[in-house]
């Protein structure tokens, strides 16, 4: 990047000009692209936010954990766009945790209830004349 004050070239990401010592980030648009959003280019790609998985858990497993997963997924996007890489990774881990726990609990509870209902249906049929 070039200094806006003296025009000399500086390494990208530098905050002060090496020639004249003035701030390189006085332009608000430059601050936004270099300081916050530009970070995406150097920091790699956004962590997986488990948004689709959270939505599916919300609908399939009937648990508020899916909704918690969506909140963390949205936090990943928010923090990543604000340049908070560590926060985005933390939220991504939380999103993964809640989605997996929600899926696990939902699966176990549903199988349990499914089994109980099969037993109940068989029991009802047996009571109604035992021709099951």
């Amino acid at each position, binding site marked *: 990047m070039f200094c806006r004050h003296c025009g000399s070239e500086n390494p990208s990401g530098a905050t002060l000009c090496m020639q004249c010592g003035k701030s390189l980030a006085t332009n608000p648009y430059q601050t936004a692209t270099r300081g916050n959003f530009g970070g995406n280019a150097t920091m790699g790609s956004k962590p997986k936010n488990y948004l*689709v998985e959270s939505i599916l858990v919300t609908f399939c497993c009937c648990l508020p954990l899916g909704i918690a997963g969506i909140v963390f997924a*949205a936090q990943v*996007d928010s923090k990543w766009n604000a340049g908070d890489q560590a926060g985005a990774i933390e939220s991504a881990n939380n999103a993964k945790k809640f989605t997996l726990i929600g899926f696990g609990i939902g699966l176990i509870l549903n199988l349990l209830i499914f089994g109980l209902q099969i037993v109940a249906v068989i029991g009802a049929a047996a009571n109604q004349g035992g021709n099951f």
Partner: protein
Amino acid sequence: MPPDPPWKNSRALPISLLLIVLASVLIWTLRTYQPSTTAWYPKCVFYQATGFHCPGCGGTRAIGALAVGNLPLAIRNNPMLILGVPAMLLLVGLQRRREKAGRLTSPRLAWTLFLILVLYFIARNVPSPTRSWLAPPAAVKADYRDAPFADGDASRLD
């Protein structure tokens, strides 16, 4: 060098075959035993525990109605699952595509989806779980294969 076609991937073929078989078994089961008149389908744990409809309540009946080609009844059972979820998956997919292309994406989409789901969750139970317009209709005893709508029946099996 072009990327390998999907069938070159050793896992893609068995996984797609498995999904096709599972989907066929599911559709056959739903067509043969309609969820609204069959007792043994898994019921919503959240509804059974709290008496409130969750965003997914009526989902099995909705897919069951879809399996017999009754789209109005499917939408009546769970409009968000039948209309909203495909739209959500499409929007999230498009956003991922933009991200892969290196474009900036907004966190607005995820927060909007969160808000929509919470409002839907509330709306399904207002003024009450049985009287909400967005709640799944009461289960009916008769085979509803020819009926466009199954509501209006006050008797609830659940």
